[in-house]
């Protein structure tokens, strides 16, 4: 087990190195930071000074090293667009995205798993067929279409819910939360549903498929042959086996939810990291793009490791060696 942790760690380091390398390349070579940051009519001498002060005249490897060093200390550069430290920008926007993602995850799990189980247990029911159809539509609708649709219905036509922004937020330490206000929740509703929908459908289909698979396995047949009651077999035994891969998938989904939040935040003008990133892309604000990449890459790596570890803990085949 130590060996596998070691190799996971090694892989994580590899990924981070690749990510930082890409980020560095972006910083250094994409666009011309000097041109972006100096005035239109700056003289060549001023530009050279700026170049030296930014350390852009030193060899690439050295710059990479410095880049790594700065990153580890938390200095991710200055945004071209609004001249503020990128770290601050990210920190400001992080709570918004995280709250959105957390609510969406809970939503997709809370609905996806039970519905998936139901469909597996009653494969020929009318309700199941209806659900399957709806789920097909669900994965055919891109997030932004769902978002716009929801806005059209609930914000524009019915005027029940707001269509942009976070509502009122409460500041707790460095974290601004929308959980504590009514308007905060009202604003959260549509975006989180939008974000959750795609993932919900995926989880539902996965749970259903796994459950069906498990129900036809030998050990479940053996349990039936031993006369155990169907309820027990379905919910205490089969479900336990079926949920194993769901754990892995959910972990990975959190990562991709953070990425998909980009789209949702754009549609709803939700002030999170995703919106920040998109604005950076359209402005070619490379430091922000690179920093976002770094941060999100790091987040994924951490999440993957946690998922792996959790899996190792819950699967007895991985947890214990042969006695």
């Amino acid at each position: 087990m130590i060996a596998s942790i070691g190799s996971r760690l090694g892989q994580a380091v590899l990924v981070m190195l690749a990510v930082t390398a890409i980020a560095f390349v972006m910083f250094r070579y994409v666009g011309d930071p000097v041109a972006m940051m100096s005035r239109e009519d700056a003289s060549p001498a001023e530009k050279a000074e700026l170049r030296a002060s930014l350390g852009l005249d030193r060899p690439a490897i050295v710059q990479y090293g410095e880049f790594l060093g700065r990153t580890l200390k938390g200095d991710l550069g200055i945004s071209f667009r609004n001249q503020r430290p990128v770290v601050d920008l990210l920190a400001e926007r992080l709570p918004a995205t995280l709250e959105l993602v957390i609510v969406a995850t809970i939503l997709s799990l809370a609905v996806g798993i039970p519905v998936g189980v139901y469909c597996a247990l009653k494969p020929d029911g009318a309700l199941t067929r209806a659900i399957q159809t709806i789920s097909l539509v669900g994965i055919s609708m891109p997030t932004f279409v769902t978002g716009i649709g929801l806005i059209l219905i609930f914000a524009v036509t019915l005027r029940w819910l707001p269509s942009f922004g976070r509502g009122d937020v409460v500041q707790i330490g460095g974290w601004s939360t929308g959980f504590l206000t009514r308007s905060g929740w009202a604003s959260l509703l549509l975006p989180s549903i939008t974000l959750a929908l795609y993932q919900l459908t995926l989880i539902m289909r996965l749970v259903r498929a796994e459950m069906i698979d498990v129900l036809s396995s030998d050990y479940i047949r053996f349990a039936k042959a031993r006369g155990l009651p169907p309820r027990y077999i379905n919910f205490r035994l089969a479900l336990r086996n079926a949920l194993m891969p769901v754990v892995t998938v959910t972990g990975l989904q959190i990562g991709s939810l953070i990425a998909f939040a980009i789209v949702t935040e754009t549609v709803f003008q939700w002030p999170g990291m995703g919106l920040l990133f998109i604005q950076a892309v359209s402005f070619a604000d490379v430091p922000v793009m690179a920093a976002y990449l770094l941060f999100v890459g790091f987040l994924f790596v951490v999440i993957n490791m946690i998922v792996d570890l959790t899996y190792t803990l819950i699967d007895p085949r991985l947890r214990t060696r042969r006695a």
Partner: protein
Amino acid sequence: MNPAALSITDLTVDYPLADGSVVTAVSGVNLMVAPGEIHALVGESGAGKTTIGNALMGLLQAPGRVAKGRIEIGGKPVDIRTGRTEGIVQGKDVGAIFQDPMTSLNPLFTVESQLGETMRHHLGLNRAEARQRSLELLRAVGIPEPERRLKSYPHQLSGGQRQRVVIAAALCCDPKLIIADEPTTALDVSVQAQILKLIRGLADERGVGILLVTHNMGVVAEVADRVTIMLKGQVVESGPVAQVLGAPQHPYAKALIGAVPRVDVKLPRLPVPAQESPGTAAAREQVRARMGGGDEAKAGVLSVDNLVVEYGARGGLFGGGSHVFRAVKGVSFTVEPGEIFGLVGESGCGKTTVANTIAGLAKPTSGSVTLGGLPIGAKRGGLARKALQMVFQDPYSALNPRLRVATAIAEPIAFYHLAATKAEAAEDAALLLEAVGLDRAAGARFPHAFSGGQRQRIAIARALAPRPRFLVCDEPTSSLDVSVQAQILNLLKDLRDLAGLSILFISHDLAVVRQMCDRIAVMKSGEIVEQAPTEELFAAPTHPYTRELLSLVPSLDKIAREPAPLGGAIG
């Protein structure tokens, strides 16, 4: 007088299909199992024995149903209208043992949990009581350190131990009847012997009736009291084991028992009717001409010299020690031209690794393998490669499902330029098909149209296509039904005579090896422990392991059989 553990009267099981037709799986079956008796239910694939088992367990899959007949378990009738066992509690009055203990147990739950849940549900025991009883059961089935084992997960137990746990689970509520479906097929010979002994003991001690579904005659002879033989859904013969196996009456029963390889005496051919098509004899003559059969000098000797084969990672990228596994630890033997050399041993002894290395599929770590002086596996397309071909165990994965049979056979012919034109190559392929007893027309079809035995014939034809001198056969008949096995073994012998082949024959079945081979080597844990001509080995084995193997084989010959027929085929 205690009621019979199981009583089946005039049972018919069929599957009404969507288009209105009805497929009958089992018809008019009568069977009785007394308390404490082991009754074997025997038949080849499709005979219906599995269907009966499923019907008794209430595990018949829709649209299957019990159409007619009466089933009583422990004197209580089964309601056949619902096809389910009402009034009789599944798991409590009837226990089940499936074939593969690895998949029977849920990998995520402990032994204690899986044993306990049945008892808690049927007997209303609480946790502590269930635990007590589980311990007793584990001891009864012979598992050492039962307290520790309760906390284990299935993957932590060996195959034999898992099967013991499965048996314990079947016993836990003191059933009247246990249905055991091929309970030892997936186990090693030595473990098999122990489990059979256990089952016999349980029947004797607890008075539970056991219905033992199997295809292995040796197991029947070893442990059963009565036997019922089935063919195509009907009973053809039934009675006490000694009587049925010693002097079978029904022609199918005779053929089936005759087809079982004997371990007591070597016959020139196995006594089954040969399967041939009209063109076979002529084709075989052609094959003999092309392969230059009889000229053994060309073949050369296969010489294996101090072969060592190791597997394993030499330290991963991020630490972890080097886990090197020595599968073959210095094996040496020779195979003379024209002889059939047998390599025998239990699973994991390394015989398959030796076969793979000789065929060029695995790389030796040290030592050498030469055929007629040339090293094997040296060059692709080289002479040595072409001269040595292989027949594998599983006929269902031996053929590319997307290639027509004739194309598959013609491929090596074309590759080695053994035919001048495409037409000639096709003709060669057709000849080979006939030589192995199939029709020419078979060449135009795809593998899925053929049965296991037929596919193996095709695989043999393909192996002969590059005109080899040497054939490696790795368990070529282990996956086949008994009667088909006998035919294929006869075929291999015929082809050996015809084409002047030398054969390396790998098997775990001592009886088969006795029938086929001229000389035999016994392997254990990567080494050869004894090597001798066949008759010597069986008459007077010198190594203790050989003696142990011989004694453990469940064998038909424990029962006095009809003396060996002279000549060959009986009809």
